[in-house]
């Protein structure tokens, strides 16, 4: 039984579940490192999934669909950015409003375009990259052949570098930790906060595109709470790209374990708890104190 659980299929499943979590979670890192709390991730994922589906449906091109998904995420994040940074509204309220709005607008347009409140018509999937050397392992080949999986891995590693080793990353962190100090040395707090939120829109939109292509369609409410799990992973990962991705991997592992164990004859209620118990144990036992960026969630008022 153990060998059946910890198989290549299991590993592949874990990664598949982890990909959308990681992308959204990294989005959260960029946004909050810049000082803007982004619970709108949930709505951004949903809009991203919807735009990716519509883009692919009308052009037949998966690449164009991915671009549409990113654009949809970007536009949704732009709303959050304007409200949070320019209008200086409460960021939580803006996030909730956007999440509600996303549920409504996607369903509304879904009914207009596809005459259904539940799902869109079928779209083609992403092109598969053929990797000769592992074609005899169908699970792994299908996984690594998916361009978004490779892209996600690259983005995770690049983000760690960008946030901690580049001038852009330093400035982004500065406006999130101590905007007054950053402003004094001539960094535009507004500009960098926009960068952070908009990058989160791109990444969460990409997470949405992943969901749409995985399903070959858009279905109502398909983000199914992933934005919130991504936020939790970001906190567990202490606002670090690698940490957040590792936390997502842990959540993905727990969820995959839960799926595999359901076939093993244990009571399902017990198994359903696994991801949540894992979260609590990790939060309480291993991670230690997670400290948010100093000015996270606080609108910046420039002194006159």
């Amino acid at each position, binding site marked *: 039984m153990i060998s059946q659980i910890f198989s290549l299929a299991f590993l592949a499943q874990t990664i598949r579940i982890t990909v*959308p979590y990681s992308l959204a979670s990294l989005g959260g890192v960029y946004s909050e490192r810049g000082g803007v709390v982004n619970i709108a991730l949930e709505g951004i994922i949903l809009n991203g999934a919807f735009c990716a589906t519509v883009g692919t449906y009308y052009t037949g091109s998966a690449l164009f669909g991915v671009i549409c998904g990113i654009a949809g995420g970007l536009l949704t994040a732009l709303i959050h950015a304007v*409200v949070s940074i320019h209008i200086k509204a409460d960021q939580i309220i803006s996030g909730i*409003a956007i999440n509600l709005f996303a549920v409504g*607008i996607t369903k509304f347009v879904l009914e207009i375009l596809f005459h259904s*409140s539940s799902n869109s018509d079928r779209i083609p999937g992403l092109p598969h990259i053929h990797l000769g050397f592992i074609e005899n392992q169908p699970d792994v080949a299908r996984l690594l052949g998916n361009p978004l999986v490779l892209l996600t891995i690259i983005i995770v590693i690049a983000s760690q570098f960008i946030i901690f080793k580049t001038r852009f990353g330093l400035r982004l962190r500065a406006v999130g930790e101590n905007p007054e100090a950053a402003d004094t040395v001539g960094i535009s707090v507004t500009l960098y906060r926009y960068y952070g939120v908009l990058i989160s829109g791109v990444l969460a939109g990409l997470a949405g595109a992943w969901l749409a292509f995985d399903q070959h369609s858009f279905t109502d409410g398909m983000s199914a709470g992933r934005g919130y799990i991504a936020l939790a992973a970001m906190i567990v990962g202490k606002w670090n790209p690698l940490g957040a991705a590792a936390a997502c991997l842990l959540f993905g592992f727990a969820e995959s374990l839960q*799926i595999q164990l*359901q*076939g093993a004859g244990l009571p399902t209620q017990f198994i359903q708890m696994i991801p949540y118990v894992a979260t609590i144990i990790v939060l309480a036992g291993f991670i230690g104190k997670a400290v948010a960026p100093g000015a996270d969630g606080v609108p910046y008022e420039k002194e006159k």
Partner: protein
Amino acid sequence: MLKGFSVVVFVVLIASGAFLFESCGKGQPSAAPNSEVGLVFDVGGRGDKSFNDAAYLGLQMAKDSLGMKYQYIEPSGGSDRESALRQLASQKSIGLIFGVGFIFTDDITNVAKDFPDKKFACIDYSYDSTKALPKNLIAIEFRENEGSFLVGAIAGLMTKTEKVGFIGGMESPLIRKFQAGYEAGVKYVNPKCKVLVAYAGVTGEAFKNPAKGKELALSQYSQGADIIYHASGVTGLGVFEAAREMKKYAIGVDMDQWNEAPGYVLTSMVKKGNVAVYDIIREWKDGKFNGGTAEIFGLRDDGVDFVYDKNNKPLIPESVYKQVDGLRNDIITGKIRVPTQ
């Protein structure tokens, strides 16, 4: 100040936009009191290709053959449900109000008590025989276990691996009824056959998570199941996606789901909400509304069935169909009793 104001305007606009999109009561007010029917859909609303659509079909049938006028509301979330019921109940012209879905159970019971001179009916009402129903409320239940028994028998007869799967949405007594019937059907025709069971979750979200449904199904297929029956709403669309990918069979639920994955949908267990809605409207119109009880629609009442038509005929051998059709008669005559849990 101006900023604060614009924020309020923004939030109100966005929020009202979200609700406007979803809840727009339709229909026109008319004269005669208690002459029309009102219906409140479950979240999902019209076009869900499931029981909301079935209920709507029932309204249409009543309009076409009984000349019944109707109004309906598609609520956007939990708190709107009760107010939607009240909104319809407080209109003079409406005499009978439907709630679609077990989630209405508490709301409709309360509203029925507050409007004693109106009639109410609730599809999938989660009926508790120890509590008295208000006299003006009918609980509509289906014997999903009977329909599930028959699709289970088809799966049991057609599996080549001696393993079949079941995927439920939210773990709840209602969905366990599907599971119990299905397992009984599989075992009745093929005692050796193993049934893998998985649920997508323990909350309402579990009916809307196709990515989870796909992973659950991929996992069951890779464990050797070759036919999977789902009772999981939109989550089941992921099950069909997995069936396509693995080139295995899936069994649909509530409505004929052939179109979700043509060639991979072996059959569907259909639950005829339209029959129930239409029957209740007709009884009400004839002055035979029998409130305070549960009205149960099983195989005998044409309330549940499985799909066997030109699409899936090539997939199901004649002999299998004949055998399952025989089981249907055995259930109707009471020779076979299908468990509910």
